């Protein structure tokens, strides 16, 4: 019999301190970047009614969601992404707010993925949603914010590819393709399968210029020259507007100084039921999947009863970690306090004061003596040990400098509360009841 309690299920992971430190640092860096651009953090529930996520032609299909039931038999699902929930929240709770809304989020999402693929079923996303604007400036803001975030965490070499779903939609409308053939064509263009595209376009009765454009679509990627190739004669209004829009976004990003990172890919056609305009993905060396993705989803808000333009981006934190894993872990070492018997009260007070001042302080909780505590400290990231005696004497051992400083709690902290001192009476009969660092002549 398998002992399941010792294992974690497929696709979920423990994150141990070293990696967790990197993760939190990445998250907080990204948070600061987004926040400085005016995005406000929000949280949405970890699970919602399935209808919320699955009601529209969602980005994530039914079989990729973890589902369960509430006590009335309604279907619930763990959030497969944040965008849908944030759109619902914005549509139902911010009717009177001034537009646009800028939201940022960080949290875990859950997806049922193939068990044998090395894919995660729970992973962390950090992202932004800009709701209430149809302007290409909104797209440019979100895309540039995503790039700022990627750079801020220390990724220097990356490529941001931008496409436009509406351009393709215009083409298929013009060609009069039905839903099924549209999906086939989309799939084949998205996988740059020229042979497959040709087998569909050969059957179409449309202008050769449009036909050739469809066949060329997988190769319409690169810099500004892509636009020249795409503006062919006979484009319909939808496609033309889409190109104008994409061109404007591209221009803005170049003006912002991102020219070397940004390129156009008109053949990028994923999630076309979800995205309505710009769509983008960010790639870097060392990870076979995009580290960041997003786009414009103008239909989603309408689906929740408040039609509005919206664009968003999500960064895959776990993927960033795998790219940055070679980087040095930035860990802070701590001090270890060892209390001799009856010195615990003073020891705790010293720890408290150091902690308030921003130090990392660990208390030795083992049963051993000072030597054992020192041995213990060798296996940990501990830079100094503080040995506390019941009479307030302390010995500070700095491992780096390899020196020992003797002092008292009073001096060390700059003050001392006498009440904390262990009340140890000796029978020497002198007036100094507690302290024994005086010269009353007794043996203590």
């Amino acid at each position: 019999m398998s002992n399941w309690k010792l294992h974690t299920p497929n696709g979920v992971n423990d994150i141990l301190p070293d990696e967790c430190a990197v993760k939190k640092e990445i998250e907080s860096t990204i948070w600061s970047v987004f926040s400085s651009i005016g995005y406000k953090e929000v949280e949405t529930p970890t699970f919602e009614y399935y209808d919320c996520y699955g009601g529209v032609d969602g980005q994530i299909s039914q079989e990729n969601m973890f589902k369960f039931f509430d006590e009335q038999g309604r279907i619930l699902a763990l959030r497969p992404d944040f965008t849908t929930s944030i759109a619902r929240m914005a549509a139902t709770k911010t009717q009177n707010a001034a537009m646009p809304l800028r939201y940022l989020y960080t949290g875990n999402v859950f997806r049922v993925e193939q068990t044998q693929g090395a894919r995660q079923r729970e992973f962390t996303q950090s992202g932004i949603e800009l709701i209430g604007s149809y302007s290409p400036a909104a797209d440019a803001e979100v895309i540039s914010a995503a790039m700022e975030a990627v750079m801020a965490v220390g990724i220097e070499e990356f490529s941001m590819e931008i496409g436009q779903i509406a351009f393709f939609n215009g083409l298929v409308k013009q060609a009069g393709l039905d839903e099924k053939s549209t999906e086939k064509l989309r799939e084949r263009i998205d996988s740059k399968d020229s042979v497959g595209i040709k087998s569909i376009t050969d059957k179409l009765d449309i202008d050769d210029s449009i036909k050739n454009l469809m066949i060329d679509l997988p190769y319409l990627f690169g810099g500004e020259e892509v636009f020249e190739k795409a503006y062919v004669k006979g484009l319909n209004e939808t496609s033309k507007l889409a190109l104008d829009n994409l061109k404007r976004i591209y221009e803005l990003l170049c003006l912002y100084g991102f020219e070397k990172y940004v390129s156009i890919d008109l053949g990028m056609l994923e999630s076309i039921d979800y995205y309505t305009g710009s769509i983008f993905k960010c790639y870097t060396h060392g990870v076979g999947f995009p580290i960041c993705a997003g786009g414009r989803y103008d239909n989603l808000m309408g689906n929740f009863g408040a039609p509005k333009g919206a664009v968003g981006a999500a960064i895959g934190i776990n993927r960033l970690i795998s790219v940055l894993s070679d980087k040095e872990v930035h860990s802070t070492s701590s001090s270890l306090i060892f209390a001799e018997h009856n010195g615990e009260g003073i020891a705790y007070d010293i720890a408290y004061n150091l902690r308030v001042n921003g130090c990392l302080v660990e208390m030795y909780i083992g049963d051993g003596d000072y030597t054992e505590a020192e041995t213990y400290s060798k296996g940990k990231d501990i830079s100094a040990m503080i040995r506390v005696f019941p009479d307030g004497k302390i010995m500070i051992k700095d491992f780096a400098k390899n020196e020992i400083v003797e002092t008292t709690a009073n001096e060390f902290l700059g003050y001392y509360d006498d009440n904390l001192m262990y009340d140890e009476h000796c029978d020497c009969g002198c007036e100094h009841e507690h302290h024994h660092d005086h010269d009353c002549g007794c043996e203590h």
Partner: protein
Amino acid sequence: MRYLTVALAKGRLAELAMELFMSIGMDCSEMKEKTRKLIFTDEENKMKFILVKASDVPTYVEYGAADIGVVGKDTLVEESRNLYEMIDLGFGKCKMAVCGPKELEGKLHTMTNLRVASKYPHIALKYFQDEKGQTIEIIKLNGSVELAPLVGLSDVIVDIVETGKTLKENGLDVLEDVCPLSARFVVNKVSMKMEKERIMDIVRKFKEKIDE
């Protein structure tokens, strides 16, 4: 310069693919020697070639462990991975077909509980369910699929047909064609973006060779 890694499906496809790579000036002579090595390097062109099981090629490429792959269309459809399928290399041509005893010809759609044995359960399911709208029972086998109808394990099979000789010898016929197959040149989506020039250069040269 980074190494570009190419995953090749072990066997005849790999040999044909190597010839194609050599014809455009890559050096993989090392591979021709009888050896058990699975990884070969062309230092001059900064290329690495790895030999993997055919059905694993799409996995290596999707995850970016290999930038490029050469693999049969059958494996691509069966694995349905998220990658770029750039060129039909034109070799390794054959087809995927539904095969069974001749008396079933033209009657498949009338059978309510059609049992289909195949090494390619996804392809079989996609064909019957999505294209023909017929619900079937899939029996996944790993080899000697032709045997299944003979011993009553299934009604028909979905398998690769090259010459049709094995089928004939086992008293089976091609009943319906599913799709034509050949070797494909596939590319990881990130590699395509990050190594655009080098990969497109190979694509261009391959296309020229194929057109010749």
